[in-house]
């Protein structure tokens, strides 16, 4: 293959030649400028004593005082711990679940059955989180919730699951798995379809059984996909799905349920402390960025795959 010419001429020349390609790009660049970069201007209120009427530019600077308040607050360690634990558990339990599902489906021979399972498992993804939380609340209700009715029939005490801190993380993560497993599996199923069938034939000739084929052909085949998904997941480690948390938690379960984002919600929206909430949100984002950079480095070093 001949090497590509390094120099393609000046910018003007390329513009003239490929102008339609650039034209197609314009809306997306605009989108990023308008909705991703322009709002960053507002981030400065994290360092200001923000008053709506003095405006962003007019409000006095407050330095790092909001960060200090947050870091010194009684709740900082707790929300950080909860955020990290919930993320970690979902990394442990929710991340492998769709991979397992995809691997299992991959070996299903009956196409009809395969399609049916796929459809049924990804349907919950399209249910609004509000409805899902309502379903969970009803299922776990101590009075007539089906889970407690079952417990009672089996001779156990009824439990008010949603008001006991110890159960919160399990409920939250299981709910996430139920809702997202099928949908997340799609990308792995697609990756599985892309594996060269010759490899399987060669493995069969070499005498590999199903288990060996999975370990030595299937998994390496989708490893790049798994790694990319993992890096993305680590990047959003601190970005817990707080909508569901806010819908499910009670003051009684704050101890295990209150995460950085639900704290930001209470501070910013319910108490109207925009500056403080922005500072906490910024803290969250910076840590998230660090995590994604680190995990990308590690991934590149050990597997050769990375986002950039």
């Amino acid at each position, binding site marked *: 293959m001949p090497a590509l010419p390094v120099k393609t001429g000046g910018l003007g020349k390329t513009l003239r030649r490929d102008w339609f390609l650039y034209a197609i790009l314009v809306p997306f660049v605009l989108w990023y400028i308008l909705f991703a970069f322009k709002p960053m201007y507002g981030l400065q209120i994290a360092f200001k004593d923000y008053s709506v009427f003095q405006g962003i530019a007019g409000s006095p600077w407050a330095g790092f005082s909001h960060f200090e308040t947050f870091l010194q607050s009684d709740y900082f360690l707790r929300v950080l711990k909860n955020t990290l634990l919930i993320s970690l558990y979902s990394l442990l339990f929710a991340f492998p679940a769709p991979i397992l599902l995809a691997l299992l489906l991959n070996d299903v021979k009956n196409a009809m059955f395969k399609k049916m399972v796929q459809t049924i498992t990804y349907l919950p993804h399209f249910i609004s989180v509000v409805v899902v939380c309502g379903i969970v609340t009803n299922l776990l209700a101590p009075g007539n919730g089906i889970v407690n009715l079952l417990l009672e029939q089996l001779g156990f005490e009824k439990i008010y699951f949603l*008001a*006991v801190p110890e159960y919160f993380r399990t409920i939250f993560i299981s709910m996430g798995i139920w809702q997202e497993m099928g949908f997340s599996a799609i990308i792995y199923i697609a990756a599985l379809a892309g594996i060269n069938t010759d490899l399987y034939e060669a493995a069969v000739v070499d005498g590999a059984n199903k288990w060996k084929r999975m370990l030595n052909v299937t998994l390496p085949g989708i490893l790049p996909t798994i790694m990319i998904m993992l890096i993305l997941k680590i990047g959003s480690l601190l970005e817990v799905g707080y909508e569901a948390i806010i819908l499910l938690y009670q003051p009684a379960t704050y101890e295990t349920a209150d995460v950085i984002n639900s704290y930001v919600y209470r501070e910013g929206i319910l108490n109207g402390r925009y500056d403080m909430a922005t500072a906490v949100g910024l803290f969250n984002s910076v840590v998230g960025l660090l995590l994604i950079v680190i995990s990308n480095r590690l991934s590149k070093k050990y597997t050769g795959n990375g986002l950039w």
Partner: protein
Amino acid sequence: MKKMKSLLLAPALMAVLVSGCGGNEGAAPSPSANDSGASPAASASPVANVEPLNLNFYYYSQALQINGDLPIFQEASKATGVTLKNVAPTGGDDAQAWNLLLASGELPDIVAYQLSGLNNIAVQGALVPLDDLLAENAPNFKAFLDGNKAVKSAITASDGKIYVVPFVSDGEAQEGWYIRQDWLDKLGLKAPATVQEYYEVLKAFREQDPNGNGKKDEVPFFSRNATSGFASLFPLWDASLSFKLKDGKIVYGPNEPEYKTAATETAKWYKEGLIDKEIFTRGNTARDILFANDTGGSVHDWFASTANYNNKLQPTLPNFSLRPIAPPASISGKVFEVTKRNPLGNDAGWAISANAKDPAAVLRYMDFWWTEEGRRLHNFGIEGETYTVVDGKPVFTEKVLNEPAVVDYLIKTTGAQLTIGGHQDFAYEEQWTNKIALEGVKMYVDNNYFAPEYQVPQLSFTLDEDKKIKELFPPIETYVMETSQKWFMGGEAVEGSYDAFVQQLEQLKLDEVLEIYNTAYARYLEQQ
């Protein structure tokens, strides 16, 4: 970027959370048997302003689209020449819409919102102070204020000026104790008069199967307030989950010794099944569910809407009889009710923004609603359509009275009873309120059960005070709710942890918060 996403998502959520709260009464206030203000508005004639004037206003309603051309506004424009255009968005939720309006920096001529929210932006220079304009442009509103000093000082902002024209509700009674009379009869019990008797009655409800289905499925006491409904029992032990008055000072309920007893006792009641096991997740539809399936025994809730279950359930549960009772005497022997219809309890009103070109003209328009003509329009809607005049008094038409939700119907079809600045007339409500509720209201008002120490007035804070409270109080509240719920559910024994609880409150600087509250309270008293 992520921050922005959070900010955008959160309000959408909150809409969902908030939409559940407060029954129809929450939106538009209800009954009581005395007409306090005695309408000083009746005399003065409106300042004629027939020059056409187009004004923008902001009135957000989550449930309904409020247009400036609703019949009452059209009717008003005949008298005043003012036409309105509502710039508030539809959908979303209250706080979101308001915050977006503020962030846009372009306030319309008139903004309607919560009083504290309005006063908060007022002291930042967003609204026009009315004090100097009142005498000349708003004689009717001024006459009302002069006759109601308490309202006047409550709407005064922390800088001592008046910015808002409030929605003043009429009546005294708000919530009361209700109990299943048919269950009492069946078990041969009498209405409980003390906390001890109340306990015994609830116990009997729980154990003696008053609904006769052979199952122990009765829920003796419940609440539709998921977060703090358990605290509606606290007054039985003279305690409170929020601020109250004690010896002329504002104190914080959980910090008072009575709180320990209340927390211990309610935990015991909960353990014995006297309080709804699902109280934290039941939510706003609790009454619909527990009364309709004949398992709910007693509640502390709004008079009118609670009494309505007697009619609603008539077809399915012919014996169902839910009756108001006097508040059971507390542990110290006092009989009192903590909720009271505050004239400003709706926490609504409107104000003139600093962007308005001619504030005086806007104020003249606002004053129209305080004239006799305007007040009737605001309360009863359009003559010939929603009401007719009988013996000089407005009486609703049959069609209106037959509506299941009168207030919603009035708002939707005419705009009457919108919480714009004006004075509600209890007569509007008396005509359609359930007889059983009216009995209860009469009992509470005649005996004056309302405990003054639970009536902390609306306070106006300065900007610095407000900032300090927003910094210090949320952690305190979070801690109190968290610990109280745990105590309530028996996760932690009250005995032994209460002292640490009080210490923690001290560490969270509760005394600073109380100091600010008392400073503001002193200012309030001064203005009286």
